[in-house]
């Protein structure tokens, strides 16, 4: 049964990806994608209900040889790709990876290494996020890509290729989180690199190609760090299993020195994949891809692989200098990319920087490494995936309707796309306000930072500044969306493909439902976190109130109070709808003409009023900040790795 469920989560999406690649007509493709998504999601659910497991693969199993073969086949393909792109750096990085892996497999390792599939609640939560959020994004892709290609006026559809890589991505992510063997994990890791390259370059424009190449070489550099980490690890402990690394630390209580080098390289690999500064540019560039790709990369897959790896290994380096540096890099990323987001008016770019910021917060939690911090990190992964997936899908739907992804163009969206605008506002609130789960996680993170042993003042300062910046760019976006035409407001019916509107509603409902279920999610995770740290503390949950002796977060009471209040406010608001009596204040000379608000200018000429946000480019502009941020971050990276060599 377990084997079947694993097959359903990992291999089934791969097979359906092949089927999608071969289905040339729309009907079959729909069926294939829906089957793939449904099958994967059901298997994921089954796996989660089945609970944690440890499934060793005997050394003599064919699977080991097969995975090695796949590793080299993949690297060979990436090398071929790099050569055909004539991108020297990528060629070198791919060659480096191949050489390292050859040395590892045939120089160092004698005989077979035992490998295993492994799942604990963290892995299962990841599988659920990947399969469900990723699945919804794929379904949304069906409607989105149809319109996207109509817009591009393509003669032959490129959707088979598109859905091939989308489904492949889901399978690879599931494989990545369910395997304990590092060489296998490396295979899935590089599959996600390949998929993201293919999907970013999907539209084939010059910009898409350039950005895809940037994503490729940065992630290949991370892959090289991964290979180096495996080499160092095998040299020091002779094993390539994550659990072995964690056990060594727990059992022997040995001096960690011989582990810190491989761990630092694994963290470096995680940073590149999670686009931490100074590697943020590949993820910002990735938004040239069709929106479902951005949604997938940013929410449930790709970037979450990086934080997963760092989080997974965090107990092994808890309390060391490496941990402090990891926390610092994460907190630094959180505050700097939040500042960069303030300077942006491009909706997708705001989302991109916000993703990087949240990943930074997760990394910071992994570095802080207390049970509370790890809980915060896992909850952030889950809630960020749902909310960010939702917001990307919203921006995609908005862009297809109004032809712009600039938030200035979204003023008064409530008028043209009432449902989508409202869902977007819910998504925004779910990122930053109580009683939503993401805020609960942020609260845990802040309290964990405040009680962290090393670097506490710096971490707290960075997180406090970062979260204030976050509120700034979210709040103004939400406000702009709520605009309505003052007089003659008539609700309009939105025209959307059913897959698009359905996915938006599923994710919006999901974020509320998950926030309500958060006590249960936490209880599901608690024992494994306690086990990992061997402590009994952590939060007690009573009637939906989280408490741990130094803090208290009342989820259900707040839900009830704020929920009732919001319902009342909505009713009060509905009563006034259609009875709008005033125009916006324009010094008393406000006018309305053809539904547009303005005033009569000096020559009696009607002038429409326009507003714009403060983006403060001289403070928060990319060109202003990026150089400094990258320099500081690079120094941090050099200290992290160089300090240990």
């Amino acid at each position, binding site marked *: 049964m377990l084997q079947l469920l694993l097959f359903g989560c990992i291999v089934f999406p791969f097979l359906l990806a092949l089927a999608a690649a071969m289905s040339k007509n729309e009907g079959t493709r729909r069926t294939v994608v829906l089957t793939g998504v449904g099958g994967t999601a059901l298997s994921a659910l089954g796996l989660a209900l089945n609970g944690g497991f440890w499934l060793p693969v005997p050394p003599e199993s064919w699977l080991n040889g097969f995975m090695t073969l796949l590793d080299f086949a993949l690297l060979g393909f990436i090398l071929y790709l790099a050569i055909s792109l004539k991108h020297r750096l990528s060629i070198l990085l791919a060659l480096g990876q191949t050489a390292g892996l050859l040395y590892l497999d045939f120089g160092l390792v004698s005989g077979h290494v035992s490998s295993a599939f492994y799942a604990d609640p963290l892995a299962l939560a990841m599988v659920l996020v990947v399969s469900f959020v990723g699945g919804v994004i794929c379904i949304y892709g069906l409607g989105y890509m149809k319109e996207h290609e109509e817009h591009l006026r393509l003669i032959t559809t490129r959707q088979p290729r598109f859905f091939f890589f989308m489904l492949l991505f889901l399978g690879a992510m599931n494989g990545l989180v369910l395997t304990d063997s590092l060489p296998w994990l490396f295979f899935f890791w590089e599959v996600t690199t390949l998929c993201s390259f293919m999907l970013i370059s999907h539209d084939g424009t010059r910009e898409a190609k350039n950005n895809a190449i940037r994503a490729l070489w940065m992630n290949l550099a991370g892959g090289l760090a991964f290979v180096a980490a495996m080499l160092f690890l095998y040299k020091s402990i002779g094993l390539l299993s994550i659990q072995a690394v964690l056990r060594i630390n727990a059992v022997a209580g040995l001096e960690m020195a011989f582990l810190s080098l491989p761990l630092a390289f694994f963290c470096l690999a995680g940073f590149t994949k999670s686009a931490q500064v100074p590697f943020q540019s590949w993820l910002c560039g990735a938004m040239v891809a069709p929106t479902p790709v951005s949604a997938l990369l940013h929410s449930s897959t790709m970037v979450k692989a990086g934080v997963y790896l760092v989080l997974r290994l965090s107990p092994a380096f808890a309390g060391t200098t490496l941990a402090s540096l990891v926390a610092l890099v994460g907190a630094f990323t959180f505050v700097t990319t939040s500042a960069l987001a303030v300077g942006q008016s491009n909706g997708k770019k705001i989302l991109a920087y916000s993703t990087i910021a949240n990943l930074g917060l997760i990394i910071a939690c992994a570095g802080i490494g207390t049970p509370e911090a790890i809980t915060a990190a896992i909850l952030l992964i889950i809630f960020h995936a749902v909310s960010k997936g939702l917001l990307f899908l919203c921006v995609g739907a908005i862009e297809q309707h109004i032809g712009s992804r600039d938030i200035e163009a979204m003023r008064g969206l409530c008028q043209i796309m009432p449902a989508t605008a409202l869902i977007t506002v819910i998504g925004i609130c779910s990122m930053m306000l109580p009683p939503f789960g993401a805020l609960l996680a942020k609260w845990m993170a802040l309290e964990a930072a405040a009680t962290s042993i090393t670097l506490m003042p710096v971490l707290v300062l960075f997180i406090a500044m970062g979260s204030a910046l976050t509120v700034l760019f979210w709040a103004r976006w939400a*406000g702009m969306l*709520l605009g309505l035409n003052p007089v003659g407001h008539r609700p309009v019916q939105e025209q959307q493909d059913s897959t698009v509107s359905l996915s938006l509603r599923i994710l919006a409902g999901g974020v509320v439902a998950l926030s309500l279920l958060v006590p249960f999610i936490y209880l599901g995770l608690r024992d494994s976190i306690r086990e990992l740290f061997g402590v009994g503390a952590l939060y007690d949950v009573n009637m939906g109130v989280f408490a741990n002796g130094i803090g208290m*977060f009342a989820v259900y009471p707040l839900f009830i109070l704020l929920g009732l209040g919001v319902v009342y406010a909505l009713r009060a608001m509905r009563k*006034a709808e259609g009875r709008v009596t005033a125009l*916006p204040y324009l010094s008393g000379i406000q006018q309305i003409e053809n539904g547009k608000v303005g005033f009569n200018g000096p020559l009696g000429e009607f002038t429409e009023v326009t*507003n714009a*946000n*403060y983006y403060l480019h001289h403070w928060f502009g990319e060109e202003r900040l990026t150089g400094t941020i990258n320099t500081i971050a690079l120094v941090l990276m050099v200290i992290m790795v160089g300090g240990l060599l």
Partner: protein
Amino acid sequence: MATFLLALAAVLVAGPMGGLLAGADRIVTARLQSRKGPPLFQPFYDVLKLFGKAPCVSNPWLIFSAYVCLLSSATALLLFFMQGDLLLLFFVMTVGAVFRVAGALSVPSPFGNVGAQRELLQMLAYEPLIILTFVGMSLASGSFLIADIYSLEDPLLPQLPFLFIALGYALTIKLCKSPFDIASSHHGHQEVVRGVLTDYAGPQLALLEMAHWLDVVLILGLCALFWHTSPTGMVVLLAATYALEILIDNCTSRMTWTWMLKNAFGLTLVLAVFNILWLYA
């Protein structure tokens, strides 16, 4: 449940208290300007009058935002009286601040929009200061729960003098008092009219006014935590703080948001971090 009902009752009492404070504030301010000033209950008459106005909104979301603002202020105060978590209280306060701005941004009035942008920058200034103050309190008391601060033997002020100043700044910014009445001034005759409040009218403005009363009480309550050991100490500290607040309000003129972020915020942030480092080391 008993705590909840008691706290709820306290919130209901706190509202009128905040109104009385606003009335007293106006009288003191008038005296400082050699005027007689309005009666003590003037804020209540104002609010009642606003409630009596015919609804006049240019976007129904203004109504929603005004209610959510009041709700958030009341819930934050409720958490305070229930001696809950300081950070949670702060996050609940944010809900109201966000919707106050969101409401203003939903209307295409340039006055409201400029006010909203400035309010966002004010939030950017006071939020980190408040978080740092709460972290400082938790360093001193070992917990983020207000209940645990009350169980301390010694007052917090001698340990957190710089954070008290930082909180003072933060609260002046939050309450839009001069020199930080940048997003919305008390008088509607300045360059941004009433800024972020411009398009809130009638009953909505009354709701926001009531939310403001609750905020004042909450903020004074937070200041009182710095001398929780004796009621006299509390009253003296609060009276001194509020008197200073009124004095500053009256003898400073409005500064720009750049000045606020560069000078006031920068300096205060240094003070706050210094205080935390001092406790941490």
